[in-house]
Every structure is written in C-alpha cells, then in structure tokens.
C-alpha cells in the first residue's frame, strides 16, 4: 500500500451571499459535477465498494440545524454509507480533507467523498459575526467587547509594529485577491461587484472595520458548497487519466486565546531560529515566536506537510499557494510561517511581485476568502479544488478562462486554519 492519495475529481457550487438555495441543494450541485467528470462513479456502489463520506461544515447556529450532514448524506442518496462530520472552526474543510486522506492511507477506505458547505445569510451580519466569534473563548475573548475582526486587527497591529508592515501592504494584498477573482465563475466578489479591476484607492475607500483592517481586507461571509472525490493510488488510476496527488498533509494547533501566546512555555525553544529574529525597538516576550505576530499552528502544520511530501525547499519546489486569509495580513504572516521567507519578510515577497498571478510563487489565484468567498465549511475544499484544476490543467474548462491557466507547475500548497490560528491544516498537491 502506498501512501499516495489521489484527487479523482473536484467541484464547487459557487460562493455568494445570499444563495437562497438550500445546503443540500448546493451540495447536490457540487456532487453532480463530480459525477459528470467521473462517469464510472456510482453513488449506489459506495457501501458495496467500501467508500466513505466526510462532511465539512462549521456552525450549527448558522445552519439552524444540528447534524446537518445527516440531511446532506440522505439528500445525496448516500444513506447506509459510512459517514463522518469534521468540525474545527475555520479549519473545518482542510481538516476534513486531511481526515479523508488519512482514512484512505489507513487502508480502511479505498475512496472518500468530501463535501463541504456553509449557510451564512440567514442571520443579520452582527449575529453572523457573533456565531463566528463564539468560536473564540466565550468566557474570556468574546465577552471582552472584541469582535473577531478586532482580534485579528490587534495581531496585525503587532506585525506593523514589529515588522514594519504598512496599510498599503494590506491594501495591496486585497487588490491582488480581488483582481484574481474576476474571471472565477465560482467567486462571490464578481457576482456582487462586477468584473472591473480594483486599485489600492478602492480598498482605502471601503469602510474601516477594525483598524488597520478595512472591509475589502476582510473575508466575505458566503454560502456555497464544494466537493472532492479522493481515492487510493490504484483506484485513482482506474478512475482518471489526469490524477493529482495529495502527497503531504499536516496539522498543528495553538492556544485558544491569542492573548496567551507571548509567554507560552509550549513554544519556547521550538523554533529557535525564529526567536532570534526580533527587532531591538520592541521588548521581546518570553516566547518571541509566534507571539501575536505569527501563527505558530501554521508553521507546525506546514513543516509536517512538507516532511510528509518530501519537500525540502518549499520556496523552490512549490509552484502555487492558496492561503486561508480571513484578513489580508494573514497572507503575509502565512508566507513566513510556511517557510517561503524568513519571518517579517512576507511584505517583501508582496512588494517584489513574487506572489502575483504570473510571479515566481502565485498566491490566492482563486481570490481566496476576501474575493472567492468564505462559506466556512466549503472554503478550503474550494481552494484545494482551484489548485487541483490548475495542476490538472483544467482552468480553461472549469473557469472558462484559459488565460488564467498556469503552465509548468508541479506542486501546490493549500492551508486552512480556525480561530485566531488555534488550529491549522495544510496539504501538498502534486502532479
């Protein structure tokens, strides 16, 4: 048994807010696309063939339903099939993919259908924010008067203070993501705002949410669904002649409360090379990495995924990246935590154009959370699907935008996380 897990097919039912279409209907749209791509796949054969389903959604409150996956499973005609739900806040969908891949690797299941979705329009926006914020500590974080935006904003303020990131850097990240989404027919930004490019000034014109973050630098709450059909090596080769492989998975965690990170003995000494990178003008905390500047969980998950995939030099080997960016600054932090540059230098990769669509390391080609959208349980599955389409040369077909297809690409990296980086996951995809 090899540890290779193949992507046989992937699909997205577009992100928008509102979609009005029910969760199970959006999931059915996504799974139908998989069935269209893999004519040999029969939903009625899952039990006989020992396949399983892994369902990904975040919030029982937003869904107004507990065990929503039972409805989905039933609606797809998969009753009797072994099924699981995975939930870990924003990390839910990446976690679902990782779990599914590990089940296949365990030899227990030859194939797993991963389906993710979210419904986010049914409460007023402040209540949606509340439903998200109670993924923070409801005794100590949420009730302090901070919104979730505010927690991420304090972390970015720390990055600006320690590393010298600027408001312009954040706006440039937003411009990159929004303009990347314009030809993405699954993206929420063009669905709502049209197909024109934006500039830094447009980001500045969007309203302040929580300094330094403005509206266009924050994820869009979305509705949508997405699916992946994963299988072991043998079955993958049988079902598709254009497979992409999940060769590495990794996950990590950090404190529930961001405020507990500066002097955390669990991090002290874990990444000594990062602890040394600290400016003279700021008194160093006891555990300078990650402090509130970086996301330690991202680092742990990325290094685990690289090791798993045999990636020695991510900056040279990885060709495209999708970062889970609920806020623009996370793109810059992520580049550092994923070892694409040293800590504090994420802004340099941005300013040098490295992460632009046809730069050395294209990032956020889908538009990611601020422009493709953030239907939580679907988010990272959709980002993996976008990278899968790139690696399997299907952007022309799936997006109807052949000019957006990259050439000569071999490896992609996708990351997801939940909370203020409380849990993170990462996968490496390879041709």
């Amino acid at each position, binding site marked *: 048994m090899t540890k290779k897990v193949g992507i046989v097919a992937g699909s997205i039912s577009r992100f928008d807010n509102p979609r009005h279409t029910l969760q199970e209907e959006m999931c059915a749209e996504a799974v139908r696309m998989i069935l269209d791509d893999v004519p040999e796949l029969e939903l009625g054969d899952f039990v006989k063939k020992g396949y399983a389903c892994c369902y990904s959604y975040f919030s029982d409150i937003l869904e107004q339903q507990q065990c929503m996956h039972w409805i989905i499973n039933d609606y797809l005609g998969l009753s009797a099939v072994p099924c699981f739900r995975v939930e870990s806040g924003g990390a839910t969908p990446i976690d679902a993919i990782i779990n599914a891949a590990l089940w296949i690797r365990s030899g227990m299941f030859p194939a797993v259908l991963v389906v993710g979705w979210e419904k986010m329009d049914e409460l007023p926006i402040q209540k949606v924010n509340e439903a998200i914020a109670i993924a923070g500590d409801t005794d100590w974080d949420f009730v302090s*008067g901070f919104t979730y935006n505010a927690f991420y904003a304090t972390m970015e303020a720390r990055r600006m203070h320690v590393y010298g990131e600027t408001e312009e850097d954040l706006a440039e990240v937003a411009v990159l993501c929004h303009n990347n989404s314009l030809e993405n027919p699954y993206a929420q930004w063009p669905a709502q705002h049209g197909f024109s490019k934006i500039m830094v000034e447009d980001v500045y014109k969007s309203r302040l949410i929580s300094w330094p973050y403005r509206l266009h630098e924050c994820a869009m709450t979305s509705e949508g669904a997405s699916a992946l059909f994963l299988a072991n090596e043998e079955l993958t080769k049988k079902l598709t002649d254009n497979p992409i492989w999940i060769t590495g998975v990794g996950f990590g965690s950090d*404190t529930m409360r961001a405020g507990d990170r500066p002097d955390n003995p669990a991090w002290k000494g874990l990444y000594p090379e990062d602890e040394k990178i600290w400016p003279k003008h700021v008194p160093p905390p006891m555990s300078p990495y990650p402090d509130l500047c970086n996301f330690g969980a991202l680092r742990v998950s990325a290094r685990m995924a690289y090791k798993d995939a045999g990636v020695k030099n991510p900056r040279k080997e990885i060709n495209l990246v999708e970062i889970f960016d609920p806020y623009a600054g996370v793109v810059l932090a992520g580049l550092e935590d994923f070892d694409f540059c040293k800590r504090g230098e994420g802004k340099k990769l941005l300013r040098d154009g490295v992460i632009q669509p046809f730069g050395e390391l294209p990032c956020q080609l889908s538009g990611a959370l601020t422009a493709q959208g953030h239907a939580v349980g679907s988010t990272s599955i959709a980002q993996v699907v976008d990278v899968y389409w790139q690696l399997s040369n299907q952007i022309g077909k799936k997006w109807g935008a052949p000019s957006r297809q990259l050439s000569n690409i071999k490896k992609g990296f996708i990351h997801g996380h939940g909370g203020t980086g409380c849990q993170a996951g990462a996968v490496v995809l390879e041709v």
Partner: protein
Amino acid sequence: MKQPGPEKVIKEQKIDEKWWKDWERRGGWRPEGWKIIEINDGPTLNDLKPEKFLIVHRPHGNLFHHSYGKVSKFFTGLLEGKLYGTKCPKCGLVYCPPRAHCFNPKCRLAETQWVELPKKGEVHAHTVMAIAWPSMAHLQPLVGAMIRIDGTNTCLPMTMRDVDPEKVNIGLRVNIHIEKQPKGDLLDVYATPAEEPKPPKRTPEELKRFREDMEKTRAWVKKTFGAK
C-alpha cells in the same frame, strides 16, 4: 462516599423572569412573517437562471445558566472591585485570564493559586473598532487593547476609555479600572492611559485617512444615537 449536593446559594442577582419568559416564548422557531423573492441562481456564474424562493422569518433564542467553574473567584473579585489572577506554584507563571491548572507542559497540570493583581499594565497590541458589538455601537470608535497586567504572563483583552484612538500604541502604560456597578463579567474591566500616549508612526496619508475614518465613525454614532 458522599453526595456533592444540595447546592447552597450564597448570593444572587436575579434576572427579570417576566422579561425572559416573554422573549423565550417568542423565540420559539415559529415563523413571524415571510417573503417570496426571485433571483438568478446556479452552480457557476456561467450557468444562472431565474429561481423563486420563499423566505420565512423564524426567531430562536436561549438563556444559558453558565458556571465560571473554578475560576469564578476572578468574577466575584470584580464584584468586589478587585483584580485576581492565578499563579503556578511550580513554574511561577501568572495567568490573567486565570487558569485553575497550569498549562506549562513541565508542570503536569499543577493546580494554581490565587493572587491579587495590580491595576496597572501595558498595551501589547491594539485596534480601533469602527464596528463593535451592537450593544457597544454607541461607543465607536472603540479602542480594544490586549493588556498585559503587570506581573502576568498573558494578555487580557479589554476596551480603553479616555484616550484618543489616534494615539494608542504598543507599549503604552495603562491603569485598569473596574466599573462602579460591576455585573460580574469581563466588560466590567477597562483601561485608561497612565502616561501621555505616544502615537504610532503614520505617514501623512495614513494619518489623514485615520482621522477621516474616525470622523465618519463618530458622525454615524451621532446620527444613530444622538449627540453624547
């Protein structure tokens, strides 16, 4: 063996039962209204067609009876105007938010001890909320700061008062206050500057934009809630 109960009520601040009963009765999933709408939908933007949807307005609410567990003393402390944290007897880490058990892996979940904390600290990180929770919207623009209380190894998030949002920066020394009529939750705690604040470096454009943002936020508050 012994039974743990019955529980003794030492002190109680009762809720208004009538207010809640009324709310709970109405928050019971029954549609209070509906609308029928038409909009284009489909799995991709290349594949849209008109659809009609029925939308019901369906309320739902809850009242939780929540225990603060073994860190309840922090909140009873607030009711007495005092700030408490916990200290690990093994490694000496001081927690606020308090933990009943030390999270230093070396201490093997040692039980911590209560210590009274000074009402002084420092800004570790900060933001200015132009959108706060609805119950605090009238306070926008609202400064939120991660405060390291002196002698602690953690940050407690709290809001700041009596400070120009433009001038808050990392490193600012603060005094910590507890509301005169505390309710026993974190919102009872807030910070004010303990020194003349030194604003963060901003370019002239950033400063201009920041001031415009603050003006817009204040104008919205004035329009929505009237003059202060």
